[in-house]
């Protein structure tokens, strides 16, 4: 069965104009990275951008496995974490022995940490694909995560290992103490990694990764060993995950067992999948979204992880190609100029869908506050209004919003589907489909 959830649609070969647009996109991206902190210059923004940069490298590395080679891993954080730990130890060694290695090289060392582990364990791990690979990756993740608490000298036990990035030899006169300098370091490695990872998709081995994803059986009959292809994908993914880990080590000046843990593996899976595995820019979108959600939601509600789970389930069920997939779905409509046909039905469905979502949020927040034992009071503040979690009225409102919203929304969604049919038919008539 074709796994439509992760497989990529084909890419049209580039004409002259498209080539220009393609390189232009990368230039614009580079410029945006440079200019961004000048526009949003608050300390909090720069910290967020740094976190997002790290998350993007991590998610892109994960997509080498998932989107390109069809390997679902529940333990990708081990490469990230081991890269981070190698980076931290190297930083401490450099300071102790006064080696002439400036800070900007540290993420590369992190990359080699991730690569080393992938080289060692990757051959055994990629023996099987599919569901078995997923389970094995889970087991390896648990193995490494648990080992990190035993090998205290390497992993520092519960408290982890710390370092001071400003003590390393300076480069361009930068000490990398201020966050803005760390941001530019992250941006540099982000651009380099993204370019390299994109280039990988245009190589023979990158194409064979896609072939292995689509039909590993047939791959053997055109002369390739799918095991070797998967192993190489694992090594590349490990390398770039290690770079992300190294960047994290530099940014936080600490590495601990959380780097290697199941939550970290789960988050990168969320980010990549929600963003969309079938497009190169999918994980980028996902990383941005998930990082902002993590930062924002955690301050607002105690059960932000539940929202994550629900969003993830929603994407899996209704938009398995992720946000990037949704965007690409509209591309033919934009080209044919029929996107306008969708606007009325989209607007119409906005209100009831919003009501449904608000009802759900109200129900969850009320339940969370109701069952909470510590004192934060029994009143939930949502949308600028107080809701008493013990009163039946609140529950009634929530129920009404959910049920009513769902019933009305269903009707509007049907109209969206009809409008979609009309718009795509019109697009096809104008020769613009896909």
């Amino acid at each position, binding site marked *: 069965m*074709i796994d439509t959830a992760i*497989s990529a649609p*084909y890419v049209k*070969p580039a004409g002259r104009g498209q080539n220009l647009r393609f390189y232009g996109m990368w230039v614009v991206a580079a410029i945006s990275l440079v200019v961004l902190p000048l526009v949003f210059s608050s300390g909090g923004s720069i910290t967020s951008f740094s976190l997002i940069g790290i998350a993007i490298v991590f998610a892109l590395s994960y997509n080498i496995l998932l989107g390109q080679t069809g390997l679902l891993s529940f333990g990708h954080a081990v490469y990230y974490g081991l890269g981070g730990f190698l980076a931290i130890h190297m930083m401490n060694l450099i300071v102790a022995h006064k080696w002439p290695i400036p800070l900007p090289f540290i993420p590369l060392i992190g990359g080699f940490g991730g690569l080393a582990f992938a080289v060692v364990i990757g051959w055994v791990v990629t023996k099987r694909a599919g569901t078995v690979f997923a389970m094995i990756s889970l087991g390896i993740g648990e193995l490494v995560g648990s080992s990190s608490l035993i090998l205290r000298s390497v992993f520092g036990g519960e408290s982890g290992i710390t370092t001071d990035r400003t003590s390393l030899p300076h480069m361009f006169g930068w000490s990398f103490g201020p966050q803005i300098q760390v941001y530019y370091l992250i941006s540099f490695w982000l651009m380099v990694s993204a370019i390299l990872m994109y280039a*990988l998709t245009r190589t*023979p081995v990158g194409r*064979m990764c*896609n072939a292995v994803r*689509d039909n590993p059986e047939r791959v053997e009959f055109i002369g390739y060993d799918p095991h070797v292809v998967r192993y190489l994908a694992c090594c590349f993914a490990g390398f770039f995950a290690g770079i992300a880990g190294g960047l994290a080590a530099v940014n936080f000046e600490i590495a601990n067992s959380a780097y290697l843990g199941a939550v970290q593996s789960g988050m990168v899976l969320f980010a990549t999948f929600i963003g969309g595995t079938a497009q190169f820019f999918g994980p980028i979108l996902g990383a941005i979204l998930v990082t902002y959600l993590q930062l924002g939601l955690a301050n607002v509600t105690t059960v932000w992880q539940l929202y994550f789970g629900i969003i993830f389930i929603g994407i899996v069920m209704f938009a398995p190609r992720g946000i990037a997939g949704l965007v690409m779905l509209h591309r033919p409509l934009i080209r044919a100029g029929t996107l306008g046909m969708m606007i009325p039905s989209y607007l119409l469905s906005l209100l009831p869908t919003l009501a449904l979502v608000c009802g759900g949020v109200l129900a969850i927040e009320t339940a969370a506050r109701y069952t909470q034992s510590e004192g934060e009071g029994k009143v939930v503040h949502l949308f600028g209004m107080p809701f008493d979690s013990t009163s039946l009225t609140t529950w009634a409102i929530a129920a009404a919003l959910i049920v009513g919203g769902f019933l009305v929304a269903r009707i509007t969604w049907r109209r969206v589907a009809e409008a979609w049919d009309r718009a795509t038919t019109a697009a096809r008539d104008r020769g613009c489909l896909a």
Partner: protein
Amino acid sequence: MTPAIEIRSVDKRFGNVSIIQDLNLSVAQGERHALIGPNGAGKSTTFNLISGYTAPSSGSVLLRGEVISGLPPYQINRRGLSRSFQVTNVFANMTVWENLRCAVLWSTGQRYAFWKNIDNLPEVRDRATQILADINLATRRDVPAGLLTYAEQRALEIGITVAGGADVILLDEPTAGMSRAETERAVALIRRLTEGRTLLIVEHDMSVVFGLADRISVLVYGQIIASGTPEEIRGNPKVREAYLGEEAA
């Protein structure tokens, strides 16, 4: 001259069920050899044994005199043997063009290169373009393989099989499910693409068999009951009784 393919006393059992018993077959280099027989005779199993999909329970398979039984499929393919599949087995999410490019990669020596841009490899591009023209799918170059018509997919299947330049080609029921016109086009395509190469083909369509084959072997219940030229097979009473019946093509 050493035969292109030689099967020596091969048995194949799945558990207690014996599919192939003491199979002996020889296909000369450059020969077009058809393997026919009733359903369930073991023709696809024979292909699987030759191409490395399964290993024989006993006996050996030789390719140009070298033992290949027990080797994995990719190693057999690298020695110059390529097969197609009865159920279309293309890379459904990749375009026709991408399918063919992947098929030529190994034979152009690219191996597992990750430092070269595949768009800048002239040999890959030229070979793929050639095959694309040969199978008449140049106009469908950028269509995902899963969206092709059935006959187009079968043509692509054959294209992938021959793209690697293998000189021993195994085709498993290439014209299955095709109309008369499509079958004729397919036969012309096969004849053109296997010029100068060794071809072993499994077919049910007798007109294809008798029109294409230099020699025919008949497989019934896992054993070859007759092997010879089309005239010899047509006149063979055992074959008529077991397979052709009275309405021989």
